[in-house]
């Protein structure tokens, strides 16, 4: 399983054709206390870069873009009642949604963990 990152601070874990998407630990730290998350519905077709989810902190609302194209398999229902999971475990239990990846070549445009760490260190 490999993990890829976007410059907009989303991550996607790839396991076969299934991708799991969330926001990075850096992003949750920047947002602060997360009070609401809206995840996409099952069956929704997304094109890479589409607004796929909304995350709201005490401070502001932010859009989450899908790092790859695909069809949504499920949103993380645990976030409905406990959006704070994103603060606690952004790159684990605080995932946003899973999708079947349509075109795996899109992953080539994303960063790996080392590149993302380097990218964040320069912000």
């Amino acid at each position, binding site marked *: 399983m490999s993990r890829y990152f976007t410059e907009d601070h989303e991550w996607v874990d790839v396991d076969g054709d299934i991708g799991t998407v969330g926001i990075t630990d850096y992003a949750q730290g920047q947002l602060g206390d997360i*009070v*609401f998350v809206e995840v996409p519905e099952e069956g929704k077709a997304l094109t890479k870069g589409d607004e796929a989810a909304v995350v709201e902190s005490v401070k502001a609302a932010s859009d989450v873009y899908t790092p790859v194209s695909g069809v949504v398999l499920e949103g993380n229902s645990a976030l409905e009642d406990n959006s704070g999971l994103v603060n606690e475990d952004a790159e684990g239990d605080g995932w946003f949604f899973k999708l079947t990846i349509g075109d795996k070549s899109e992953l080539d445009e994303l960063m790996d963990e080392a590149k993302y760490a380097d990218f964040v260190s320069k912000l």
Partner: protein
Amino acid sequence: MSDTETDTTEPETLDALPLDTWHRTKGGRMVPFAGYEMPVQYEGIMAEHLWVRESAGLFDVSHMGQLVFSGEGAAKALEALLPGDITGLKPAKMRYSMLLADNGGILDDLMITALPTQHPFVSSEVEKRESDARERVSTSLDTNGEGDAAQELYMVVNGATKWDDLGYLREHLADEITINHLDYRALLALQGPKAVDALDRIVPGVAALTFMTAGAFDWQGHRLWISRSGYTGEDGFEISVAGDAVEALADALVDQPEVKPIGLGARDSLRLEAGLPLYGHDLDDETTPVMADLGFALSKRRREEGGFMGAERILLERENGPVAKRVGLIVDGRQPVREGAMVVDDEGSEVGKVTSGGFAPSVGQPIAMAYVPAASAVPGTTVKLAQRGKVHSATVTAMPFIPHRYVRAGASK
């Protein structure tokens, strides 16, 4: 991921306030605000907010403008611009008021205090010299201490509007009225139920102040002007201190076990829960005191006599009711509805606007302030809010959302 809300445009050059370095050392995340860099948070807005409600928080509000008015008839002169009873304000008492435009719109909201006759801000000879050097007019204040008729007034105005306020005040007040901008002084707010314990330990005597009264206190050779007031709905104090002493005072305060530094983020959520409007958001030059539901600031004598900017419109509006009114809203569900969202009718047409909103940590759900048509302003009314293509339902609610816990004169503790 990206912010969906557009940042307000800020001037390109930002000034540093006296506590700038102190905030950074304490881990404050600095953001542009009112022309300065200010800390939006330290450990996190939610934790800071809850800390203030249960203990005490230290806020740096040095961006705000501190003005002293002196000269024969200053209080009377100010009554032409403010709708409050200023001439009747007893020494060391303060009042919430508004600076009004001639159409009745609100140019700023403010706190005004009647000072004891001697200029209370200057204690040491050093401070006197510094203050004289900075402010030509300080001389007249310092020699004004023999109890002559000229009442001095101290006014605290919003940081983002202070320069416009100064221009407007200077334009409308006679030359005999001196305005001294105390820009060498910093302003701290210590807020929360344990603020009195912490502050009285280092400045003995402040516990004797009651809500909306003030006095001069000495601390390590510095003259402090302290009022029992604030903008969180909690008991607390606001402390005016010379800029070169504020860091030592801030250190002494956060050394108290009850006190943590608190950023602007929690200041905003605290005042929202307290139902207190924020200028530039819930109040502006297109809203009147009546629309803003600030009728309490129209003192009885002033309502009867009129004679202030916009009096005709404001008094008529008070008589007949405003077209739109500021109300509190509790939003259904978990998603915050924020400033800029529309209040819509059943057809989806805009009938009002949300002027502040967010998740309320102590309420545990999203709340907002909005201007709604008078017919919808009754508590219990359901209104619809449109934000980013989604319609939310909300209920008009009496404010404050969290009861005020001020320590008033005569109240048993």
